[in-house]
């Protein structure tokens, strides 16, 4: 089983690395970049929302932090966006601690609602702040800069491989978390918080670790977005609909699984693009009807996410034979 999974992952990785060499069609490359960027956000969200079970619907605030910090640093101070990416992650992590401190006391829907509130507040404040570009946002300079400057015009490939690299790094962090005691603790917190505490698990500390990782990685995705689109404004980087989409990707694929959010991003982007291309030109909302209906159908028939399709029937390895334990 596990070996099969590794082989599958390696195969997927090889395909991902080779993909842009197989097709030079910009549309496909763009779609692939979009999928990977979306997947990266879902995977980052998954650490907090999936493993730790803290359903955040305010992750756009972290995404925006990444986009705004790197942009401000590069536009105002000429700092390389690569450094800005790190700075953005730190700021987002700090914001995460700020959000988590009051909100982690809240349970379930209350926590989700509080994160929506935080996201909306951040958007309104940035929108009203002239120093942060207000409602207008920022245009980044367009000139090709080479790697260090993080702007590429001649080819999509740099963005493609950066998106792939960031996605792999994010999956890697997830993998490490999942394999370490932190991952076990997060799942324990999600299942039975009181029982976890009785076993010495500090809820605040581990939720906070999840928050910091999740927020920081989300922010890195925000920097990549800013450098790829070279334009940011509150509507496109801080909106609640973005927050919901980030969560949706992970939930669709399977929250709390390693590859679920990646699958979710692939499927969601495919559905979105297909419905838009097939029905979008009609201007009648047909694309939304089909898209919405598909979401409902998936939620109803595959409630554990698409990843559930692959794991549900998979038998666990049988326990090694051993003499039945008896009480003396």
């Amino acid at each position, binding site marked *: 089983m596990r070996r099969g999974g590794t082989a599958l992952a390696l195969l997927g990785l090889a395909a991902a690395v080779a993909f842009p060499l197989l097709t030079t069609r910009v549309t496909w490359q763009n779609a692939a970049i979009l999928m990977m960027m979306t997947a990266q956000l879902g995977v980052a969200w998954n650490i907090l929302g999936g493993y730790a079970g803290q359903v955040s619907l305010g992750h756009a605030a972290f995404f925006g932090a990444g986009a705004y910090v790197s942009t401000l640093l590069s536009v105002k101070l000429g700092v390389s966006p690569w450094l800005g990416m790190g700075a953005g992650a730190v700021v987002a992590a700090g914001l995460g601690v700020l959000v988590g401190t009051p909100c982690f006391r809240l349970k379930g829907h*209350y926590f989700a609602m*509080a994160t929506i509130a935080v996201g909306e*507040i951040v958007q309104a404040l940035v929108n009203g702040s002239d120093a942060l570009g207000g409602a207008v946002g920022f245009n980044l300079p367009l000139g090709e800069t080479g790697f260090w400057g993080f702007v590429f015009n001649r080819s999509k490939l740099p963005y493609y491989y950066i998106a792939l690299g960031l996605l792999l790094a994010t999956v890697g962090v997830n993998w490490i978390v999942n394999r370490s005691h932190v991952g076990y603790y997060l799942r324990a917190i999600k299942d039975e918080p009181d029982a976890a505490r009785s076993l010495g698990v500090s809820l605040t500390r581990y939720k906070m670790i999840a928050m910091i990782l999740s927020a920081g990685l989300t922010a890195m995705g925000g920097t990549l977005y800013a450098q790829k689109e070279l334009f940011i404004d509150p509507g496109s980087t801080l909106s609640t609909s973005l927050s919901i989409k980030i969560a949706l990707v992970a939930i669709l694929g399977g929250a709390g699984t390693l590859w679920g959010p990646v699958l979710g991003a692939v499927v969601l982007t495919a559905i979105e693009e297909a419905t838009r291309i097939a029905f979008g030109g009609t201007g009648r909302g047909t694309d*939304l009807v089909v*898209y*919405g*209906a*598909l*979401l409902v159908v998936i939620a109803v028939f595959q409630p554990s996410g698409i990843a559930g399709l692959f794991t549900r029937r998979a038998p666990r390895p049988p326990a090694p034979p051993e003499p039945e334990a008896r009480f003396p």
Partner: protein
Amino acid sequence: MTVELLLQTLLSGILFGLVYALVAIGLTLIFGVMDIVNFAHGEFLMFGMYAAFWAFALWGLDPIVTLPLTTLLLFAVGVAVYRLVIRRITDAPMLSQIFATFGLMIFFRGLAQYLWKPDFRSVDHTIVAGKVAFAGLQFGLPQVVAAGGAVLTTAAVWAFLRFTRLGAALEATAADKEAAALMGIDAQKMFALAWGIGAACAGVAGALLATYYPIFPEVGSTFILVAFVLVALGGFGSVVGAFWAGILVGIVEVMGGFLWDPAYKMVLVLSLYLIVVWFRPQGLMGKA
């Protein structure tokens, strides 16, 4: 002058708050009974508005006249949504429930755009047109009627839950599903009833709003955020909590916008919410 303006603003805030409350009590009722947050609730409101609009546009019937029909229609829509979709995800994890109702929201918006085009519509004359003026204050009659309707509907729902056998059964299901089942209450029926009443409340609100608010496929998104805040602020599942939260939020939003900066009126409302849950994580009247 200033006192008048302040009083006028305060009362306007209360009028709006009452309509907010009406949207929110349906949402909180559904949550209380089923532990499901209905992201598509704003779309029930939207359907209520369109029902009122089409009765007006096609047959010249006033939204106030067709209000009982709109209410019944939305009750049926609520029950249908429960039967066709929600019933199947009753025991699913919270995440996939969010996912399903979110999909419903997108579906309904798309459907409205498909059927009725994305245009803005409005009911351009109604029997409740006009103004109410007293002591130097003036209010649009539609707003006053809407607020009054909201109070009556909320009171009716409250009385239903409090004083009828069916309402008691609904409350019992909300409190403890297993115990209710042991008492011979059919949970499926109660769930359907909650969705019916929840959607009907949104339908009443939609019909009342149609007398003065523009109607368009995405109108639900305008009200849903406030409704969420009310439900969480009042305490998930608490009808009375949502009612008082509605008035509170209405006042804070309108007074805050007037005295401070309208650009930050929602920031004020959301901050109020965060402050309240900081001290009372279960909301104003929620069960701990």
